[in-house]
């Protein structure tokens, strides 16, 4: 069962999860994410995508099965991971810079000056170099999400776990941030496990799209995305892209309880 485990960034083996005495939410999920992969999870609402992400992060314990992150238990691999939530979840009493510094500050691994420098560099990378002194409430939704991304990247994660990070944004902002994510990934080389409801977003970003089914949640299909990197915005209108979006959409349509928005967008 565990062949190749040492190489994989994330190895999920026969993972099941139920809350309390309720029906199990995930059942026998097995999934590998290789180093450098960008894997999207897509599936009907309530199928357990967020739960799977939290299991990988070690935020909730599995009922049975195992998760390994870089060969370690999730709890021991936290140094390696960063989580990005659907909402920006910034601390409103901290400035933008203070928010980006948070992870480094809690880890207490670097001194104050270095922290500030890293935070400023990352804010620059997400295009917010000039609002470091602002408070979150002064920013737009898209800007807040960029801050959230900068905060996640500040600790130099090897694995980025993202739960519908762009779900609350308008399509234009979402597309722009998608392109920026790919650029950042190119520069920093992290691995990603990414939850989304948008098929087009999943295909645009990923090296592989994993379609989950609900009740109980399990892997329905894995669809590799063959396009190379770097990817440009124009890819979205390429025939190969559109036909792949169609394929993922029809895989989703094959599931009951379909609560998925958007096709090609």
């Amino acid at each position, binding site marked *: 069962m565990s062949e190749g485990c040492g190489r994989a960034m994330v190895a999920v083996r026969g993972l099941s999860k139920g809350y309390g005495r309720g029906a199990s939410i995930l059942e026998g999920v097995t999934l590998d994410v290789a180093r450098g992969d960008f894997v999207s999870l897509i599936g009907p609402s309530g199928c357990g995508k967020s739960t799977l992400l*939290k299991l990988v*992060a070690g*935020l909730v314990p599995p009922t049975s099965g195992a998760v390994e992150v870089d060969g370690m238990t999730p709890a021991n691999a*936290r*140094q390696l*991971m*960063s*989580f990005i*939530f659907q*909402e920006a*979840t910034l*601390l*409103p*009493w*901290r400035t933008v810079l203070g928010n980006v510094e*948070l*992870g480094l*500050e*809690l*880890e207490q691994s670097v001194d104050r000056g270095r922290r500030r420098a890293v935070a400023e560099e990352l804010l620059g990378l997400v295009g917010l170099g000039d609002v470091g002194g602002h*408070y*979150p*409430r002064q920013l737009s939704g898209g800007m807040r999400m960029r801050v959230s991304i900068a905060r996640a990247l500040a*600790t130099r994660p090897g694995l980025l776990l993202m739960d519908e990070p762009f779900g609350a944004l308008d399509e234009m902002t979402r597309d722009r941030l998608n392109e920026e994510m790919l650029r950042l990934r190119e520069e920093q080389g992290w691995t990603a496990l990414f939850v989304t409801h948008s098929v087009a977003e999943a295909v645009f970003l990923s090296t592989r799209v994993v379609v989950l089914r609900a009740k109980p949640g399990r892997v329905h299909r894995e669809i590799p995305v063959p396009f190379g990197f770097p990817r440009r915005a124009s890819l979205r209108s390429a025939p190969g892209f559109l036909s792949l979006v169609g394929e993922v959409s029809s895989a989703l349509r094959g599931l009951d309880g379909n609560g998925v928005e958007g096709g090609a967008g």
Partner: protein
Amino acid sequence: MRRFLTGAAWPLGVLALVVAGWQAATVWLAIPPYILPGPARVMGAGMERHENLLLAVRTSAVAAAGGFGVAVVCGVLAAVVLAQSPLVRRCLVPYTILLQTVPVVAVAPLILMWFGSGLRSVVLVVAIVCLFPIIANTTQGLVSVDRNLLDLFRMSNATRLQVLVRLRLPHALPALFTGLRISSGLSVIGAFTGEWFASSNTVGQGGLGYSIIYANSQLQTDYLFALVLACAALGSSFFLAVVGCEWLMLHRWHESALPRETE
């Protein structure tokens, strides 16, 4: 600040009208001054005995501020304990409710008996009165932190202390101030009640509570009015001081301090 000043203009206008009407009524209706003294007479009595008046205000202010301070420290500490787990809350919250439901006038004589008459007892009565709103609001603030933020801190392997200091306490700050607003008004009432019982043996030094009883027994209605107004002024200034602190600490980031376009 400008907004504050223009905001104050309206209530001040109302005040001027009431004072004018009050003076006119006492003159035209020829109400005897021991029933209802006019504002001019009240002012006169206050001026004439301003040394006693200021001493009473100072005594009560010290007691109210002292008790308020004790309540803030104890209240926040209690809230931090209560915020530790639902089990702790289930065990202890019923007893914090006692603070709210047992009338202070019932407890004050006991406190007087145990701790003697004087500042210490008054401070204690004030603290008891002020404690519950602080505990209740702060606890609510400490436990109502967004789950995602807690997860975020866990992902960084944050210690319990880091979660408390960097997440729960700042998050609870607005709720704490809600409690402080309520308690600031209560603190003067508490000082008044405490003095009523605790300081009757130190004539002339007894703070507003004692002075009012004394003025009443002597039928010095004009001075009594001056004392009541001093009480109101003291309570209001405490409240305003709290609101000022709140503004200083929250206006940069908290939604309640966002400038509004309406009105």
